[in-house]
Structures are given as C-alpha cells and as structure tokens.
C-alpha cells in the first residue's frame, strides 16, 4: 500500500535513501541539496540506517570516497548541486570509466557566475558527457520514484555506470507537495541487494581499479563504456516496467502529454513541464493541437524514440534551462535537432533558452510559445531558431 504524504523534493529523495539504506553516504553540503545529507545525518544519528556516513572536505572528496567504497564492493551515494558538481568534474569521469555505479542526487542550481543559488540545469548539463546516466524529475514524486529505480539501472551487469538523479533546485527541492511513498520493505525488495561480480577486496579474485591504460587498450575500454550507455536504454525500460508492475506509476524515456494528434510541441526537462501541461489544457479547450514531450532520461539520449514522437508535428520548440554558449543553442536543442535530422518530414524546430538562475516560467509564457509555433507554420517564416525568453533586456523579445 502506498503511503499518502506531503514532502519537499529533498525530503522525498532523503526518504528513498533511508529506505534503501546504502552502505556509504559521502557528504559535503551545498545549497539547495544540503537538506539531503542533513536529513540523512539525522537518520544515521537516530539509528534508522546502517550506513557509514562519511563527512569529507569537498565534493571532489565525496565523489572520490564514493568511488573508493564502490570499488570495495559497497553501494555508495552522495548529493550535490552547482559548483559542488563542478568541483567533482574530474572524478565524475573516474566513476564512469571505472564502471562504479555511484548514485548521485543532483539538485539543479545555476553554475556560477554571477553567483546564484536558484534553479537552472547548467550544472548537470556541464557533466552530460562525463559518462553518467542522467534522469530528471518534474516533481517530488518523480524524484523519489527515479531514485528508487537508479541503482537497479546503474548496477545492472550490462550497464555498470553511475547514475545522476536530478530535480529542480528550490522549485521541487524546497516545495512541499503531496506524494505517494512506498513501504520500506517493498522498496528494499524492489531495489535488491548489491552483489557486484568483481570488486577490489574480493579475496578469491582481487582486482585493480583505476590503473593506467595504455594506448593499445584505452580505446577498447572507452568503446565498452559507450556500449554500456547504449545497453542502459533497455535496462531503463525494463526497470520502469517492473516499477510500474509493482507500484503502479508508469515511466519511460520521456513523458508524452497530449501528443497523439499534436501539431505543435514543446520539448523540455524538469518542473516547467507541469506549468506547460496547464497551458496545454487551456489551449486544447480552445481547439489548439498542442502537446509536450518531457524528457526524463537525458543520458542515454533517446534519439530515435524522440524523433518518432515528434514525427507528426509541424513545429517544435525545444526549451533549454541552460546556455550552450556555442552561438547556436542549448544542449537539449542540439540533441533534439540531431535526433530529428533523419526524419522524412522534419518539423520546424526552434530552441529557446529560459529560466536561467531561477527566472520564473509562467503558464502564459508556455502559451506564447505555442502561439509562436502556430505563427511559424501559418506564415512559413521560422525566424530566429535560437533565442532567449523572459529576459530583462532592451532587445525586442521574439515571442
């Protein structure tokens, strides 16, 4: 039986961690993820978990401690945001290439500077090519549910990759909303024990971790890593199917909302999806054929599936909550355009950067985007394919 509760996104993730009761939590605090180790420290103090709680001097050290613990055959977790994730940068790659399935709760916050504590995706997007699986949430429920699925995905023998479970800083991390929690016994049964095939301290077959790799073998190892990321796609779907069978909530690579006959679609990541759904309900009632694809899994990127979902659309707006600083768009925009290139009838695609540093996105903003897409199709003029929304600027806004 699910338990009806009201929790912030941070407490929801901390609750998932408590229920899983991992071997090691290496912690260094940073806003807005600080509450996660804070709640967890209380669970440790109250004897509710058996976890070794390691307080370290930095995020570089917290990730290093996780890699060490995983190498020894343990299940290790941490949480961070923004500059904390950036400070882990080097060791994020070590975790992925050493094939250590660390689980990291990333509470998305703008990456300095100017210094800012509020939500955007520039922190985790900066780490998108580090070899981590990245799964994003719209709300506290999804953050909790994604966390419960993370270890089954990352620890799978065909995958063995670290997993980043992301949610929007403050918007979901500090917002209290209704949530359905699962019984701890059911969670434990679903997640299962971690039984790695090989690990550093296995006395029958000890192994080295993090050794130097010569040119003659390095590329083979990177290809294996790339293959593991491809394998993750099926495992993510299998775990989601099992999750649905057990707990009744359905997940995939992305959520399609009113996409069945949608001619105009928005593609985005995170909490703004909810706001967008409200705009869709309103516009649908007025007869507009509008829909939404909310990306849940960004790494591995579900390119073929996304292209299929958008194949019947006339125009698509891809919303990026981080800047690409490449003079042609944001990371989700680039992935989506790439995914759609091989479609026979490509929709017109524009890329809008929004919500940086916590800039709010309201229902009316989403409505404006749909009207803009309709105008593109009606006039046959696409106009700018990369622009910013809602900024305080002297330039005329496109929307």
């Amino acid at each position, binding site marked *: 039986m699910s338990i009806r509760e*009201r929790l912030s996104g941070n407490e929801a993730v901390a609750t998932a961690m408590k229920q899983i009761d991992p071997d090691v939590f290496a912690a260094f605090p940073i806003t807005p993820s600080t509450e996660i180790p804070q709640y967890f420290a209380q669970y440790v103090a109250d004897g509710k978990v058996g976890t070794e709680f390691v307080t370290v001097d930095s995020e570089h050290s917290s990730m290093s401690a996780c890699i060490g613990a995983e190498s020894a055959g343990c299940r290790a977790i941490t949480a961070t945001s923004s500059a904390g994730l950036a400070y882990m940068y080097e060791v994020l790659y070590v975790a992925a290439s050493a094939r250590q399935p660390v689980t990291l709760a990333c509470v998305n916050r703008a990456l300095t500077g100017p210094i800012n*504590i*509020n939500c955007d995706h520039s922190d985790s997007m900066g780490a998108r090519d580090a070899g981590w699986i990245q799964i994003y949430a*719209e*709300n506290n429920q999804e953050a909790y549910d994604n966390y419960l699925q993370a270890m089954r995905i990352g620890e799978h023998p065909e995958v063995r990759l670290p997993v980043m479970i992301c949610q*929007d800083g*403050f*918007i*979901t991390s*500090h*917002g*209290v*909303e*209704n949530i359905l929690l699962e019984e701890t016994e059911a969670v434990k049964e679903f997640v299962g024990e971690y039984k790695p095939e090989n690990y550093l301290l296995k006395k029958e077959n000890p192994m080295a971790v993090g050794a130097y790799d010569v040119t003659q073998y390095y590329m083979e190892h990177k290809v294996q890593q790339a293959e593991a990321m491809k394998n993750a796609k099926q495992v993510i779907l299998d775990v989601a199917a099992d999750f649905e069978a057990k707990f009744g909530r359905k997940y995939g690579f992305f959520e399609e909302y009113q996409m069945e006959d949608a001619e105009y679609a928005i593609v985005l990541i995170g*909490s*703004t*999806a*909810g*706001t967008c*759904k*409200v705009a869709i309900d309103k516009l649908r009632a007025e007869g507009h054929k509008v829909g939404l694809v909310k990306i849940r899994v960004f790494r591995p990127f579900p390119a073929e599936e996304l292209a299929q979902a958008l194949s019947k659309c006339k125009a698509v707006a891809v919303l990026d909550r981080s800047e690409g600083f490449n003079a042609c768009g944001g990371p989700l925009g680039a992935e989506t355009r790439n995914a759609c290139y091989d479609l026979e009838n490509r929709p017109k695609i524009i890329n809008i950067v929004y919500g940086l540093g*916590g800039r*709010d*996105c*309201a*229902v009316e903003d989403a409505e404006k985007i749909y009207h803009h897409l309709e105008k593109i199709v009606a006039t046959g003029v696409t106009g700018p394919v990369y622009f910013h929304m809602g900024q305080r600027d002297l330039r005329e806004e496109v929307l």
Partner: protein
Amino acid sequence: MNNMTEIRWHGRGGQGAKTACLLLADAAFTAGKFVQGFPEYGPERMGAPITAYNRISEERCNIHSNIYNPDYVVVVDETLLHGVDVTAGLNPAGAIVVNTPKAPEEIRPLLRGYAGRVCTVDARSISEKTLGRYFPNTPMLAAIVKVSGVLDEAQFVADMQASFEHKFATKPQVVAGNMAALTMTMKEVREG
C-alpha cells in the same frame, strides 16, 4: 483548475512567513487536499522582504511557477505595505489579511485601489497575550483559514491541536498557548 485556491504570503525574513505557509500546506494536506507550499528564495537575510506561496486544490497542482494572480494575500508585516505592491494581481473577489492593530478602513487607502475584502488582525497583541512573545505565524495562519474559508474551521482547529502536540512533543507547555492564539485570532479578525 477552477477549484484551486492560490495564496501569497508577504513577510520579512525571520518572522516565520515561510513556516506559516508550510503549516497551512500541512493543515490542508491533513484535510485531504492536494497542496503546494513553497518560498521564493532571494538573497535571504533577517528583515528582508520575502514571499511564500500556497496552492490548495482537490486535484494535484501540476503548475510550477510563482503565483501572480492570488485569491488571497497575507501580509505578516504591515511595514511592507509602503514598499511592496502586495495587492499586485490579487483577485477582487478574494481578500487581503494584514497583521496590524489598525482597522481595515485605515489600511485600505494603502492598498493602491484594491476593491476586494480587507481584513486585519493584531497578531502581535494576540501572540504576546497567548504565547508571551511575538510569533506572528500561528495567528496569521488562523487568520487566513478564517478569511479564505479554504478549510473547515472546526476540523482545522482539531487538526492543529494534533499537529502542535506532535511538533512540540518535547515542549508540551507551548501547545495550549498556540491553540489559544489560534482560536483568539479566529474570533478577532476584523473585516472591512
């Protein structure tokens, strides 16, 4: 979502506006509603103006933006009326509740032409009488429940008794004071 009630809180950092907002979310959750309670974070410091928000509905609130057209506004510190446009976007069919010893008629001229209901409550006096110190959040919570009618009053009082007993399990002596603050406020809110 026509059945959704949206409430915006204006306070100063350290006065407990965020706590009151989360308490309201708690009370509405206990009453079986779908809720949101969230603060807007700026460069927080004691005394700086802060905003917090509630959505209360019969169905899940998907929207994740700030509230621009609230049904109700709560002002925890009346000095904010001079610097902050507290009635911005406020539904004329809704109401504003201000923490002040003044009468609603004295507050209305400060509200930039707001035509809806104006309510006042002297949370300082109630808090000092019942709790011995100035904690405006319990009175302001009771005031918004009374003014908005978003929760059944009798059920709310019963739920808050249980909630305070749980929250103050280690200092049960403050439960009675908080309950007195709650019930006194519900009697003393003035409407003009």
